[in-house]
């Protein structure tokens, strides 16, 4: 069946409401990292029809990623940016995707996400999470940052929540469950945290700032 952009838009409007869809379509969101959090966040944002996505990662897909990230065995060895873009274009080809294939640093983060109204932090290293927050909140006075902290293991989903420690910073997760030698990452809990970040993002886009 031949699907047109207009048909696609109507389908989204039917599900989300015309007014809300217009706002989603006009918004720009960044995703920093395309691993267990970011690959799922990107897909959820694309499904919702967020019109402009800025996606960045330096890494390639590894066999040890498949257990929790939005990739398939065919993607192993490919750049994550390239692999996720292939998937996203199948989900929603009518989005303006912008890709940055490289490491996000304190020097380049401000430039990469310059057009974004919201950035979803989706790194795995806590130092990188802290770096991104410090850099973007300082340089971009209107930006909202949605982050994840505490999603390792198989602890209850009921411990995971979204908080708002700073005016423009949201943190999703249980804040304590860290990856380590005794605690691994399991698909449902990481994906849950990704969904919390995507949900907070769509709330912000539609004008709700309550966590």
């Amino acid at each position, binding site marked *: 069946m031949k699907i047109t952009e207009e048909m696609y838009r109507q389908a989204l409007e039917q599900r989300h409401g015309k007014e809300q869809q217009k706002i989603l379509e006009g918004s720009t969101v960044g995703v920093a*990292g395309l*691993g*267990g*959090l*970011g690959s799922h966040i990107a897909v959820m944002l694309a499904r919702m029809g967020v019109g402009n996505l800025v996606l960045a990662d330096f890494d390639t897909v590894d066999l040890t990623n498949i257990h929790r990230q939005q990739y398939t065995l065919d993607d192993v060895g490919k750049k994550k940016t390239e692999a996720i873009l292939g998937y996203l274009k199948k989900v929603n080809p009518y989005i303006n995707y912008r890709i940055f294939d490289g490491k996000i640093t304190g020097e380049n983060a401000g430039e990469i996400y310059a057009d974004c109204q919201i950035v979803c932090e*989706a*790194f*795995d*290293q*806590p*130092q990188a*999470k*802290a770096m991104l*927050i*410090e850099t973007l*909140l*300082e340089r971009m006075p209107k930006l909202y940052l949605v*982050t*994840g*902290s*505490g*999603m*390792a293991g198989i602890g209850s989903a009921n411990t995971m929540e979204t908080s708002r*420690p*700073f*005016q423009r*910073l949201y*943190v999703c997760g249980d*804040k*304590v*469950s*860290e*990856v*380590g030698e005794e605690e691994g*990452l399991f698909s449902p809990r*990481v994906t849950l945290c990704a969904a919390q970040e995507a949900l907070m993002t769509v709330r912000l886009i539609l004008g709700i700032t309550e966590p």
Partner: protein
Amino acid sequence: MRVNGKEETQGAGLTLEEYLKTKGYESNRVAVELNGEIVPRSHFSETVLRQEDALEIVSFVGGG
């Protein structure tokens, strides 16, 4: 001063770096807001805390 919304009797007079260390935070895993303004890590050692300050400290754990 107030730290993460709670009254804190210690800390005034210390630098932010010293305070974080005293409280067991790893300074490269935290984001800090002082009186509503983000404090860059490079300023931790020169920022002296005062009694009237409101401090928010968010510490991150690994995984993603």
